[in-house]
């Protein structure tokens, strides 16, 4: 029961972890897009989803050269492309391939369906586009496809448990979002070229906000868990890391650092993922409603408050779309796409880096003071090696930062490459939205609210609810406000 590892087919970490596979897939997809630098259009067939009234126009190839494929042709081509890449990765990571292919196929088509539905003009069209669709009103909710994917996943996960178990082989929210984040690195690199000062501000302030949030959140959640809910340090430390800011990945890293039993982060994961889904359904809309005047505050806030990479970046993507639509409707200002998402992603990336540092500190403290038991001797402390920092480092960040740096410096040194890089990054970004959609659907699928209700985890849920509602949301908002207030994305 406590064995949480699935045997991988490769002994090499480079081929056996979702982090490295996120890097390989992200780099490969961008490399194909970069063909545009030499006028080679390798991703022109990738589907581009648009707001529609006529379903036939809901999706088309992004390049006119591939328009002959038609909408259906592009999504079928993308299906085989993404299926091939993910199947290779899944095989190396130890998945049962036939079942992976079958469940991924269902996941993909439901995600595509949600994407198309979310772009229906009455739901998604911004006020300036209504005339083009010959409609007099629309909800201007931006691209709701992600939310539909999440809700569809939630419905299956909670009401069709057999189907959820079948699909769970391909429901890998962390892998999909990390792949999307690596690809996002190229887009942020391009954006940074055109607004270097703003990009620098977002990165520096994002780092400071994360350090702040972690240092303030962690001890408070730890004290709440220990003092008021009577958990031992073995539970309280992974709980503090998981609940306070970083989700399941942090609970795993901290549990490992203090030599907690494997079952502890596994149990915490079931609570964290449910809260992530709830946060994902509420907070982006709250951010859009209350913080549309401070878009970067909203982006940073979601990065600091919503747990897990998938949940946070997904929230940032929804908020990015909602806030831009709302500001356009209210003020006529069209913000450039992606900056709010960038604030969220920056926060999340620094959080992931900080997990490793914090885990190392905890490992030292626990190994010296033997905090897991009252007498301090019942559990062997083990030694702390530098290697463990590397082992715990989230490798997808190497892909994200590497791609961002390569694109940014290439454009800086060779301005003649910018057009090609921009076009290539744009095409890769279309595949990124597919991975984001798959992540949303997967989050919904693995979130079992009904199971949590009967899970007998009242104390863990209590710590989470008290910490989140009483403290984390408000402190995160305060920090984001102090660091990002008055900063707005560039207007188009």
């Amino acid at each position, binding site marked *: *029961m406590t064995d*949480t590892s699935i045997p991988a087919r490769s002994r090499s970490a480079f081929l056996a972890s979702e982090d490295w596979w996120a890097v390989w897939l992200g780099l490969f997809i961008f490399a194909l897009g970069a063909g545009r630098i030499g006028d080679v259009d390798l991703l022109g067939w990738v589907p581009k989803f648009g707001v529609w009234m006529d379903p036939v126009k809901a999706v088309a190839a992004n390049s006119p050269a591939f328009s002959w494929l038609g909408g259906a042709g592009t999504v079928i081509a993308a299906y085989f492309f993404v299926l091939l890449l993910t199947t290779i990765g899944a095989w190396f990571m130890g998945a049962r391939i036939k079942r992976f292919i079958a469940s991924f196929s269902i996941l993909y088509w439901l995600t595509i369906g949600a994407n198309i539905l979310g772009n229906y003009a009455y739901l998604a069209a911004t006020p300036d586009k209504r005339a083009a669709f010959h409609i007099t009103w629309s909800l201007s909710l931006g691209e709701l496809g992600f939310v539909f994917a999440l809700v569809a996943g939630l419905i299956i996960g909670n009401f069709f448990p057999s189907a959820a178990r079948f699909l769970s082989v391909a*429901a890998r929210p*962390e892998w999909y979002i990390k792949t999307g984040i690596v690809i996002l690195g190229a887009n942020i690199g391009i954006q940074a070229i055109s607004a270097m000062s703003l990009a620098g501000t977002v990165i520096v302030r994002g780092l400071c906000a994360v350090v*702040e949030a972690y*240092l303030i959140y962690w001890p408070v959640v730890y*004290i709440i868990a220990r003092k008021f809910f009577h958990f031992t340090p073995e*539970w309280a430390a992974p709980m503090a890391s998981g609940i306070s800011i970083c989700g399941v990945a942090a609970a795993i890293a901290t549990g490992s650092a203090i030599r907690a039993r494997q079952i502890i982060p596994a149990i915490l994961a079931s609570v964290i993922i449910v809260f992530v889904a709830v946060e994902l359904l509420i907070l982006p809309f709250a951010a859009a409603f209350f913080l549309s005047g401070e878009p970067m505050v909203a982006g940073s806030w979601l990065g600091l408050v919503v747990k897990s990479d998938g949940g946070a970046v997904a929230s940032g993507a929804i908020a990015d779309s909602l806030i831009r639509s709302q500001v356009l409707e209210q003020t006529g200002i069209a913000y450039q796409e992606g900056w709010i998402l960038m604030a969220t992603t920056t926060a999340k990336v620094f959080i992931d880096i900080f997990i490793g540092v914090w885990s190392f500190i905890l490992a030292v403290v626990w190994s010296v*003071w033997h905090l897991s038991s009252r007498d301090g001797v019942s559990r062997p402390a083990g030694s702390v090696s530098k290697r463990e920092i590397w082992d715990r480092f989230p490798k997808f960040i190497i892909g994200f930062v590497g791609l961002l740096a390569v694109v940014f410096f290439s454009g800086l040194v060779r301005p003649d490459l910018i057009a090609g890089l921009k076009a290539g990054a744009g095409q890769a970004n279309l595949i990124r939205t597919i991975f984001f959609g798959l992540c949303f659907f997967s989050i919904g699928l693995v979130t079992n609210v009904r199971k949590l209700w009967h899970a007998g985890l009242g104390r863990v849920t209590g710590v989470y609810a008290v910490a989140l509602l009483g403290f984390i949301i408000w402190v995160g908002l305060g920090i984001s406000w102090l660091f990002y207030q008055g900063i707005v994305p560039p207007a188009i």
Partner: protein
Amino acid sequence: MASELTSHRLPQADEYYYKQTNNHITPRDNEIETGADAGAYFPLQPIEKKLCAYTFGLGIILLFIFVIIFKVL
């Protein structure tokens, strides 16, 4: 088990989700694990208080420093 956690390949979040969805961890397991913990409770130790106080204090000090830097400079 502990050595597995510190080996080259750490268990990843997606594996935990998979286990959850496929009922590898039952409510009974949850009760046993959290119940066992309830019996092993002991009050906050001085080192824990120190760790939390220093961490929180550093956070507050850095907050002032960052705000001053961002607002003044």
